[in-house]
């Protein structure tokens, strides 16, 4: 599968559907992530109210984003930290490189960060002869596999255990580990032992941030493995790569989000490690970094403010929308060809990369609405997906056959009697074609449907006929 090409969505999807390993890995979503989240939500009666408050807080922050960012900067500096404002991905990469060069860094350990993925930081560091070492187990796995993440919180969710066993054997044999491990515990341990020394040797540690606190100038990371904490505590320099919309006013406000984040993401009551970091090590501290830098990335976000996709800036990156998406469940994250995947990715990517390049993504949805139902900050994802479809249509990015089809449909839709007649004729025709088996194996112009499954033959009346009949019966009763 070709990675990072959103234009190849259709080809990617075809390949993904035929990939048995991927399908078996993805079934774990419905047996694990979905019931886990539901359990955690059910155990906290106040979840809905917290979620509502979280939504209001995000809207409040977005309306006053300049104020809260300036306040964050002032307090971060007061605590001895540095803030780097970066309008573009290129600016952010340059700032990171300059900081790394100030200590002549050879290796950089990294905690999980979607912003680092967004700015393609690893490739850039490698080009400049600095070795990035991913320490989150999922990120470590995909770094070995030379693949991008396929899920925003479980980057290697597409890999089966057997694939991880093979990958570790291939890459760790040269380190003297020539036995192929098959138990998850042994695989976890192998990665733990290999990464241990690297944490201590790294010159710079890079993490992301789930939140920035304006009141204290702090950043927060939420993790389970402890890798983020080792990454940001042991090297001389801690760099936080993050984006504008992560700022919240106070510790108390951050707390509201912390109560909904883990529950929505992994179905945990609280992740194992929630760490608030403020500035570098202080007088008397025996460990911790000597410098603390925050890279504040814009990269298209300021332009989303005040636009019809502003609601997307509320996203807290929990991944619930993709876990519950029937399209994501079937094709996995790599099919999208973008850093952000699933419903949130299909809304965010056109804003970051442009509609022309990503026009297939908003169409990779049945608009079933489950994403919006489970979104802890009520982002109207289906509405935003429709908006992008409309934009692509207006921009002429829709192929002429599709436009022609839509205008034919529009012609009938504007003339209800003709539409009704057409629907009746089409239905009777299809019922006749499928009269023997009750379904059709092949149908002209509908290969996209019938290649994968049979089309059931219609029976009875059209929807409009049934609707009218029901209305008449209601009126009569």
């Amino acid at each position, binding site marked *: 599968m070709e990675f990072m090409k959103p234009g190849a969505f259709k080809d990617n999807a075809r390949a993904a559907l035929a990939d048995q390993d991927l399908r078996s890995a993805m079934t774990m979503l419905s047996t694990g992530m979905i019931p886990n989240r539901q359990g955690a939500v059910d155990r906290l009666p*106040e979840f809905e109210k917290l979620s509502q408050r979280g939504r209001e807080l995000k809207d409040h922050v977005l309306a006053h984003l300049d104020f809260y*960012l300036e306040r964050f900067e002032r307090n971060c500096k*007061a605590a001895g930290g540095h803030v780097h404002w970066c309008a573009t991905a290129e600016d952010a990469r340059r700032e990171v490189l300059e900081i790394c060069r100030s200590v002549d860094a050879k290796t950089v350990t990294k905690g999980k960060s979607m912003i680092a993925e967004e700015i393609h930081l690893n490739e850039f560091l490698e080009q400049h002869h600095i070795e990035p070492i991913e320490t989150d187990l999922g990120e470590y796995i995909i770094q070995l596999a030379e693949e991008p993440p396929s899920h925003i919180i479980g980057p290697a969710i597409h890999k089966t255990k057997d694939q991880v066993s093979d990958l570790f054997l291939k890459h760790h044999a040269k380190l003297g580990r020539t036995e192929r491990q098959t138990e998850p515990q042994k695989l976890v341990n192998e990665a733990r032992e290999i990464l241990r020394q690297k944490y201590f040797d790294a010159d710079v540690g890079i993490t992301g941030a789930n939140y920035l606190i304006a*009141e204290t100038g702090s950043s927060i990371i939420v993790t*389970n493995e402890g890798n983020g904490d080792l990454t940001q505590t042991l090297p001389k320099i801690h760099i936080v790569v993050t984006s504008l919309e992560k700022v919240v006013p106070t510790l108390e406000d951050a707390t509201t989000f912390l109560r909904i984040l883990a529950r929505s993401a992994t179905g945990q*009551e609280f992740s194992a490690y929630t760490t*608030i970091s403020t500035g570098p090590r202080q007088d008397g501290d*025996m460990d911790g970094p000597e410098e603390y830098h925050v890279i504040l990335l814009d990269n298209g976000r300021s332009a989303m403010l005040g636009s019809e996709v502003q609601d997307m800036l509320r996203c807290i990156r929990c991944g619930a929308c993709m876990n519950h998406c029937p399209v994501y469940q079937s094709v996995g994250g790599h099919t999208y060809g973008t850093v952000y995947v699933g419903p949130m990715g299909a809304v965010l990517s056109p804003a970051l990369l442009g509609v022309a390049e990503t026009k297939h993504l908003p169409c990779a949805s049945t608009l079933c609405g489950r994403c919006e139902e489970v979104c802890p900050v009520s982002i109207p994802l289906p509405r935003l997906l429709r908006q992008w479809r409309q934009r692509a249509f207006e921009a002429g990015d829709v192929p002429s056959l599709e436009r022609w089809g839509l205008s034919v449909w529009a012609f009938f839709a504007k003339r209800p009697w003709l539409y009704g007649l057409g629907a009746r004729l089409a239905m009777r025709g299809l019922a006749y074609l499928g009269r023997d088996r009750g379904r059709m194996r092949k149908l002209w112009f509908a290969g996209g449907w019938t290649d994968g499954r049979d089309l059931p033959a219609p029976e009875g009346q059209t929807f409009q006929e049934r609707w009218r009949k029901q209305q008449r019966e209601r009126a009569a009763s």
Partner: protein
Amino acid sequence: MSDNKSGPKNGPKTNNAGRAAILGAIRQSLGRPELSTDAKRGLNEHIAKHRANLVPARGKGDRAALIKRFREMAEAVSCTVETVADAAHLPAAVADYLRANNLPTQVTLAPDEWLAGLDWEGQSLLETKSGAAGIDDLVSVTPAFAGVAETGTLVALSGAGHPTTLNFVPDYHVVALPTSQIVGAYEEVWAKLRKANKVGRGFTMPRNVNMITGPSRTADIALTIELGAHGPRSLHIVLIDDETAGETDGETEQA
């Protein structure tokens, strides 16, 4: 936060062009200039008041209920928990725990006055040292600033007596927590922190506030939960019952 500390001495300069461009773009998108002094006053008040938004019912209750909930929630995330009558029993409790679980007996203690004041010499089984964690350290014993009942979460603050590495590097982590430090909800920890680190009208944050809920874990291989990913493989909590009549161990808060 106090704003009177000096800024960074060296390191890269602030990217002023980027700053102006981003703030300008934000204001343009929002369709307004920089906020007026009046508008800012309202927002400053929001920060200064730092009100709790909504505290779940499970974060409230009497002392006994909160301690019970803390224990249950911590055990639900694979912590082991025991209670001792007073701090003097801590060294023996640590020795017994390590022996019973067949764990190493070389222990790194947080260089904390309260811990140092206990009789570790009396435990012939234990070899103790104190300081930050080195790569070969296998067991650490640290105090905590608070325990939070709503999720069984321990809160540790970094500081001279409390190196952060002790919470993450060793394979086995033992935390000593007087029950008087257990609170119901996270917001109570922030109130404690604001009071303990008060400076002028504000307060200072330590480099790290570590909220720890169970030992290290991962589900990155086939969504199977495994403990001991990169941080501690086990987390043992020794509760010290300092609230029952007649037992007080004095001030044990980290500051």
